[in-house]
């Protein structure tokens, strides 16, 4: 039963220099898959850069950058089929967009227009969740329902290293294992919860070591190695789909930028530490690998760069467009079944607005 323990070292198929590491347990993805993954990495990085710019320009209220963690989000989305569901956090906007949500819609929350900007059922993406670890339980319930309904859906739930300390993390993994539901838990261990280092979240050898305590397999993977992530998640998703129950995957990565634009990470970590991780960047390493293998030439690079630029432009244009959300929205959706008290309150607001319009005249 100790086979539920993760390996001593994280699974790695392509190292920081872009060299292939053979692994007897996990096969590397096809070169086609890697090329497509590289494309997504470039796009994801561009999205992060663009959003950082937009927050500086005041077009976004806040942005939690996933710069350096893009491989995790790309692999997560890549492992799922269209009918499957993704349960993202506030840091997973890139994954949400890769899943098909229009960039502008994905950013509505962070722009401040509304709480959630897309219909979750359009692309099977749950709303971005901020209360930490709570979405893991939603994923488990969703997957449990799928089993009860006889649907072959897999739910992939993401959270950070800090979130693993919350009670909801524990309850989610336990429910998932007890009911053996098709969920994959992907922990992006980026070594920080805002300013708090991993050492304050756990004394265990790894976060994946928690899995055996629930009776599910745990695995650790290099979170900056798209190839390894893809293979490990493929196995986990396949296990879930075939009735093998949940898996806990810990991706070892790093939050290369501040927690959000509002954070100042110079207060709590050394630049040298950040620099070490820059050298393990998921994008540069895959580029090195593909170039060395002559799978990536200048023209391909340009094509990908153009595609990324197009998305960045779409994002920029959408967010630069000024929006004036309708105050009615505050009341419209609170109850589907109506509420007389809210009707009275909306009338109050409407009266105010009309009077102020009159004054304006």
């Amino acid at each position: 039963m100790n086979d539920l323990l993760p390996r001593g070292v994280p699974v790695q198929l392509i190292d920081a220099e872009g060299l292939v590491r053979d692994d007897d347990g996990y096969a590397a993805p096809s070169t086609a898959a890697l090329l497509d993954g590289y494309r997504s990495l470039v796009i994801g990085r561009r999205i992060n850069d663009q959003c950082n710019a937009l927050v500086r320009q005041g077009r976004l209220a806040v942005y939690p950058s996933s710069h350096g963690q893009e491989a995790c989000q790309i692999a997560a989305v890549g492992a799922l089929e269209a009918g499957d569901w993704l349960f993202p956090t506030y840091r997973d906007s890139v994954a949400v967009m890769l899943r098909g949500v229009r960039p502008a819609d994905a950013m509505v929350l962070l722009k401040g227009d509304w709480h959630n900007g897309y219909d979750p059922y359009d692309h099977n993406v749950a709303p971005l969740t901020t209360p930490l670890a709570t979405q893991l339980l939603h994923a488990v319930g969703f997957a449990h329902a799928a089993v009860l309904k006889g649907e072959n859906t897999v739910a992939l739930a993401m959270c950070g290293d800090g979130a693993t300390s919350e009670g909801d993390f524990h309850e989610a993994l336990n429910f998932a294992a007890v009911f053996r539901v098709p969920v994959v838990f992907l922990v992006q261990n980026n070594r920080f919860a805002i300013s708090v280092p991993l050492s304050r979240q756990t004394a265990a050898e790894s976060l994946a070591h928690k899995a055996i305590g629930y009776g599910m397999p745990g695995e650790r993977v290099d979170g900056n190695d798209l190839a390894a992530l893809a293979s490990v998640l493929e196995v986990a998703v396949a296990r879930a789909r075939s009735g093998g129950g949940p898996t806990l995957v810990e991706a070892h990565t790093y939050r290369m930028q501040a927690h959000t634009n509002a954070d100042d990470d110079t207060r709590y970590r050394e630049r040298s530490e950040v620099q070490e991780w820059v050298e393990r960047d998921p994008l540069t390493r895959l580029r090195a690998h593909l170039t060395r293998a002559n799978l990536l030439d200048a023209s391909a690079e340009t094509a990908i760069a153009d595609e990324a630029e197009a998305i960045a432009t779409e994002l920029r244009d959408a967010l630069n467009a000024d929006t004036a959300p309708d105050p009615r929205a505050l009341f419209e959706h609170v109850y589907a079944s109506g509420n007389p008290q809210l009707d009275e309150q909306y009338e109050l607001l409407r009266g105010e607005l009309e009077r102020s319009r009159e004054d304006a005249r």
Partner: protein
Amino acid sequence: MTMTSERPAATPAAATTLTMAGAINLALADAMQADDRVLVFGEDVGVLGGVFRVTDGLTARFGESRCFDTPLAEAGIVGTAVGMAMNGLIPVVEMQFDAFAYPAFEQVVSHVAKMGNRTRGAMRMPIVIRIPYAGGIGGVEHHCDSSESYYVHTPGLTVVAPATPQDAYSLLREAIRCPDPVVFLEPKKLYWTKGAVDPAVETPIGRARIAREGTDATLVAYGTSVPIALEAAAVAEEEGRSLQVVDLRSLTPYDDETVDAAVRSTGRAVVIAEAPGFASVASEIAARISERCFSWLEAPVRRVTGFDVPYAPPKLEHFYLPDVDRVLDAVDTLQWDD
């Protein structure tokens, strides 16, 4: 409320006499029969049938996949209910006792209550959270909290508290049909009170009931305080005072129309609730009546509520609980000219 026309198969032809626990059990069974998206889960709700036997027989009749026990974790129960609702099911979950719903508070307030709104109605939460509430059963600490005010103060939740077996049946059916999340408060001490239940009776959520006609003053009550109000009215009648009793039934939405009309007709009001009174549902009722019936009021609105202390241990609970005498004392202070 959205209505569905299906009528359950297993429903007794006409009205039968049931305890409130029996009425709730029947409502669950009828709802599960009528709509196979409805499922029941929680702690000990399966083979045991719940510590109050309210879910008795549901697993046997509908199977493990429709009514089942979960691991012992309330946030887990409510949080997975959210996920099930996302995936098209209608979870009816039980919190074993009021105070044991607190671990689920974040899931209830930040997700159950808000999901429909934050998704602009795209993702509704037709969840029912059943909570045996309040005291009067000689329970030890943490088993008799009246936690309704926490839920009533939370926008997005619908909160219902029946006082009769018929309302328990009809309102629970409505709650399960309701596209919004409903906190369904079951007065523990009334679980074994009997009454006629006609499954054909439909009662919309949000409408109060005049439980007793009266002309001198209005007693506003809900859940456990309704029988106390009725008893007080009966005693008052002997003393020559005619007290009207309003049973709110639904706390959110709140039936201003019925309450205002009632209080305006008598000009005097006493609000009765078992929960600690400070910043409570009773405060809201008193504040609304005072504001909306200002020019009709002959006397200040009085509140008879639990004291602002942790719920009493069994041997002291009779001092804590609002009772007929305390209600009549409050009525006596309503500035009668006679």
